[in-house]
């Protein structure tokens, strides 16, 4: 007899189907992120109109050849606003991720490497920051230092440190105690070199995944802050601002501005999470969400 056992046969059928579906989905997500990134870079070239050009006669116009996505209550072209909005909506999270990763990884490596009181001190710092939700911290920062782009970004950069620090510390601790690190130390390789040439490259998979997940969260949080009116101010075309500005028109029957603004945020964040998840599988690490 040569038949494989029944449960195995069933499993064989299921696995490739699920895999290919998720692969296609990931491909779509990657494409979408590429489009968003291109939009941010090429906004001046692609945008059919000036994003701040008011045309009160064409207010709340429906989609047409001149305004592919219609206009808002001030008659500004929604497509152009979305394209330009991609800039602040992407740069903000990028800064948050870069800053929080830099700080978090430094705390994590120092804690894992030196142990003892260094580790304890890093853990205390992380615990204290962890106690404040990012959004609350950002609101406090905005009320103290004024609204705008900078205060929320700085606040979120600090607020995101704990998650990064904890996840990376665990991985770094494991890595640090592998015999190859001991071998490098016995060879007399300098500590900075061990960190930069050995520990960080071996943690890079995890770092990339965490950056992706963090980017998505930062984008949502920044959009929420902008929506609350504490971030970039009108006439900025930040996506969060667009959602906020458009809500008065919803009741008048013109939902397009808020709708497209939220859709773009949603699509970008979902795509980021899908891609991060796929990378996590690929690198064999777990993506940790907040």
């Amino acid at each position, binding site marked *: *007899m*040569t*038949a*494989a*056992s*029944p*449960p*195995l046969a069933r*499993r*064989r059928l299921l*696995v490739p189907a699920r895999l290919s579906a998720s692969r296609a989905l990931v491909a779509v997500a990657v494409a979408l992120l590429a489009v968003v990134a291109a939009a941010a870079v090429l906004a001046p070239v692609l945008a059919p109109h000036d994003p701040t050009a008011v045309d009160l006669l064409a207010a709340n116009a429906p989609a047409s050849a001149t305004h592919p996505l219609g206009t808002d209550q001030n008659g500004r072209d929604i497509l152009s606003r979305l394209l330009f909005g991609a800039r602040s909506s992407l740069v903000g999270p990028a800064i948050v991720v870069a800053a929080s990763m830099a700080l978090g990884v430094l705390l994590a490596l120092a804690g894992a490497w030196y142990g003892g009181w260094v580790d304890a001190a890093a853990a205390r710092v992380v615990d204290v920051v962890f106690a404040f939700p990012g959004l609350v911290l950002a609101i406090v920062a905005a009320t103290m230092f004024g609204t705008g782009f900078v205060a929320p970004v700085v606040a979120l950069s600090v607020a995101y440190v704990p998650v990064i620090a904890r996840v990376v510390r665990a991985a770094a601790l494991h890595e640090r105690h*592998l*015999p*190859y690190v*001991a*071998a*490098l*130390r*016995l*060879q*007399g*390789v*300098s*500590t900075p070199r061990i960190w930069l*040439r*050995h520990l960080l*490259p*071996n943690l890079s998979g995890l770092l990339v995944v965490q950056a992706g997940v963090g980017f998505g969260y930062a984008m949502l949080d920044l959009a929420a802050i902008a929506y609350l009116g504490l971030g970039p101010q009108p006439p900025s075309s930040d996506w969060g601002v667009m959602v906020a500005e458009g809500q008065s028109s919803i009741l008048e029957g013109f939902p397009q501005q808020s709708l497209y603004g939220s859709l773009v945020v949603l699509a970008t964040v979902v795509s980021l999470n899908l891609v991060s998840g796929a990378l996590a599988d690929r690198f064999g690490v777990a993506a940790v969400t907040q």
Partner: protein
Amino acid sequence: MSEELLRLRDLRLTLPARGGPREILRGVDLTVGPGEAVGLVGESGSGKSMTVRAVTRLLPAGARVSGEVRLAGRDVLALDDAGLRRLRGTSVALVFQDPRAHVNPVHTVGDFLVENAVRVARLPRDEAVTRALAALRDVGIDDGQRRLHQYPHELSGGLLQRVTIAAALLQGPDLVLADEPTTALDVTTQEEVMAVLDEQRRERGMGMLFISHDLDLADAVCDRIAVMKDGEVVEEQPADRLRAAASHPYTVMLMRARPSLTEPVRRAPRPAADGQAPDGQAPDGQAPDGQAPDGRAPEGRPPDVLRVRGLRKVYRVRRPARGAEELVAVEGADLVVPDGGSVAVVGTSGSGKTTLAHMVVGLVRPTAGTVEVQGVEWSAGRLSARERRRRGGVVQMVFQDPYSSLDRRQTVRQCLVEVLAVHTALAGAAREARVLELLEQVGLGAEHAGQRPRSLSGGQRQRVAIARALAAGPRLLILDEAVAALDVSIQAQVLRLLERIRAELGVAYLFISHDLPVVRRVCEQVVVMDRGRVVESGPVEQVLERPAAAYTRDLIASVPREGWRPRRRARSRSVVSTV
């Protein structure tokens, strides 16, 4: 039906892999009669574990099986899920290599033992507990009542493995599948566990399929031995005739490869360092730090490369409610490694031998005592990169696990170049030539230079680790169980390599090991450690042939060899593992 308990006929197994399915088993034929013990011996990758998994159909996803697996008359490959569960719970029991990985750590030993009886056999809990206690007594655990309430982490490895054997017995199986059940244990513990398994199997008339990489061990407890290689059984012999009748070259190689405790050792001639060369003080011309070698080097002999005096390590363990407790890892060890000599430190796990080695190289800071290298005392504590570099040029270390002792992202060349950049001024073509020379010294070729660890075998990785250590040009190599993780045939090659390197380069070895036959083969002196204390030391022949300490005698007696049988010693000091 036939009288066979287990019959495998033309068992084939393929697993999905990158680049197409891989054939793991290529037509395995094997039988186990009722009450018969069959040893399945082979090296890693031979397919012995997959054979066992196929018997219970515990196979990885995507595995394709064909052929016949018949257990107690039932066609295992045709069973449905319910039938399979009944089979696994009643007719066949498994004992795995690492008990800690196979016992759920959040349940007590009691829960673990009665689970099967309550869930599958539907016994009342009281009765299940009574039976569990009886089974624990059978495997030599008398204080079962206390053990039932303990968690796996509170038991030592040997004790826990006896618990899993008790669990296997409780099912009242016809067949026990034991997959390397003692490989993760110390030799002395191995003997205990094997004695228990052997005794219970005989008493209960169970059949056993015993998987092992250790031919001597399988030979001691089995009626018949099957040798596996590359997914096939290449030889099958009754155990008592194996040594005389083995005909397959692979079997013969396996038997020869393993160093023995009794055969005479032909030792490589000792490197020149011994005595007669009055011209050189230390082999590398001058003592470190510009200090003249002190008066401890009589008649122009180079100072001993390593002198360890009164080395002691105490860990303070904080325990809730009990305050701090002191745990002595090493209690005043003394040790001398002569220049170009080879000294072994042997002992079971927890004897402190690895802590001792780590203190010598500075990975662990000693509580007391001194380490003197080439006549210069090495201070303890956090060292600058410069100081580490200086010391690294004298003492290097090779670790046990060849997988994690290399940076998985570095090619072999990058790995060696990094060391050469630290310790030499070589660059360009000269450095490349040195890389190739090092690879050649460890029996690798230029084609390995561009490879990363994942495409190298375990033996090759260990060779790279040795080359990396040699790249620093050390006078002393600390080998921490450096061949323990290797297959028998690979181990033999690496041992030959180590002998050659010592003869050619005059590097001294401090050889940390639990493996007496290997130590006897490689080393001249031996230091025996038990629970942090040096209990005996001297020339290898003397210590192994006329051991003075009881601990050494136990250690020697528990090494499997021709005509050896595992014996149960006095009801063991039931050691509860701490931490």
